[in-house]
């Protein structure tokens, strides 16, 4: 009895030890190529809506429609330091719509009216075209549909508007469902490098 018992114990200890060694090995293998970063982000050089050269294609709405959140964690973000402050912003106006009496396009591009336009700086009272305009995206309304991104990119615009994963909203899913749907594999988890 005691022999059998001790044999079982020895076998159990051996199995446990082997499993621990195995796990340690696995950890080592993984740790060697581990990175510290961990957040989904969009590689805008791949994103259809931002990609230079992806012209004349339909807007990709995967970011708006495929996020597990009802209001996607992806938002259009205007990088102000790169924005041309255009009088007629193709991301704000639907520049294919008819021109109204004020000389401006009659339609806005954003289906959710999430962009605000405001004249900034020194303002010419006589000539609205002679002003700079700031375009601010209301993150409460924006759902990341990417239309403005598509219109703002070069060569039509300056590409100051990009789709970005807002990390305060993003749930950091293990497998981002937008990434699964993204036609260009623009979603990467290790693209975000931090110190």
């Amino acid at each position, binding site marked *: 009895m005691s022999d059998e018992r001790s044999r079982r114990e020895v076998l159990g200890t051996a199995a446990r030890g082997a499993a621990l060694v195995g796990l340690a090995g696995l950890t080592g293998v993984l740790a060697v190529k581990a990175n510290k970063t961990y957040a989904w982000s969009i590689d805008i050089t791949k994103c259809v809506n931002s990609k230079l050269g992806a012209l004349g294609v339909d807007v990709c709405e995967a970011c708006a429609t495929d996020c597990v959140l*009802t*209001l996607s964690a992806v938002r259009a973000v205007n990088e102000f330091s790169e924005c041309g402050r255009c009088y007629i912003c193709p991301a704000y106006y639907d520049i294919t719509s*008819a021109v*109204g009496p004020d000389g401006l396009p*009659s*339609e806005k591009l954003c*289906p*959710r*009216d999430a962009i605000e336009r405001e004249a900034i700086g020194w303002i010419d009272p006589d000539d609205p075209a002679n002003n700079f305009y700031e375009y601010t995206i209301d993150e*409460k309304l924006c759902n990341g549909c990417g239309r403005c991104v598509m219109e703002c990119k070069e060569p039509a615009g300056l590409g100051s508007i990009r789709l970005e994963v807002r990390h305060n909203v993003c749930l950091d899913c293990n497998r981002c469902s937008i990434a699964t749907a993204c036609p260009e594999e623009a979603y990467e988890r290790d693209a975000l490098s931090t110190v």
Partner: protein
Amino acid sequence: MRYFSQRVALRVTVAAAGVAGLLTVGLIGDWAVGAVHAPGDKALVEELEEAAKTDHEVSQQLHDERERQTLASVDRKDRARVAAWLLLVSGGVFVAAGKRFMALRPQRLPSLDRLVDVRFDTAAPAIGKRPRTDESGNGETPLEFVARLVEQHGAGREAAIPILQAIQNHYRYLPDEALRRVCEPTEITPAQIAGTSSFYAQFRRSPVGRHVVRVCHGTACHVAAAERITEELRRHLEIKDGNDTDPRRLFTIDKVACVGCCSLAPVMMIEEETAGRLTPASARQVLDALELRS
């Protein structure tokens, strides 16, 4: 939670389940309505977009329609969030109240047939009566019986226990009359007999009833209120304090340690058969049924 009666628990459980159900239906309904309307809304916007390119009048309409849809989606999201929280709370209440209800719920009374599904040996000898010459088993007198035992086990002091056991086996208790007979042909003294018979739990000095009912007072049964069973049976059988057998000599109520079927607690054994999951009432019924049969 003690003040939370079973009926209240049940009501709360049902109410919470109802609320949760309604919320679920509401959530799914809201989602379904949105899903059904979505293609139409989209088509409407596209139509208006197309029209607005040529007709300036439409553009305000398009703007309003887009705003309406945006606000509707924002509203739906808010509604869903509120409903989800309420659902979470009502689900929690349902589970908590449900657990309380399950805990308070009376153990369902097993059917009487199952309880008395015991094969009582009705042909068992009538026992528990004072030993009389003509009733002593195989016709021998107590004197002869004791003499035979002494012959069998010897007359030394060391024979006391076997002899007492044999007597107990025979009469199911140790009648004074028989004990007195033991002292005569042996070295065993009355003091020794008194000591031995009172020391060992297996020896009884008073006659037993026709059936010995052993109510388990092991840990499980103790926890399951075996004491109440014993008390109820003693009350029912009108057993007086200090006695363990009813005046009719039908039943002897015995407290025993664990009988080894705690899963049925509280449990009593009658002869070799077991009745479990007792309540005071069902225990009483078992004995009544047994009395009727025998």
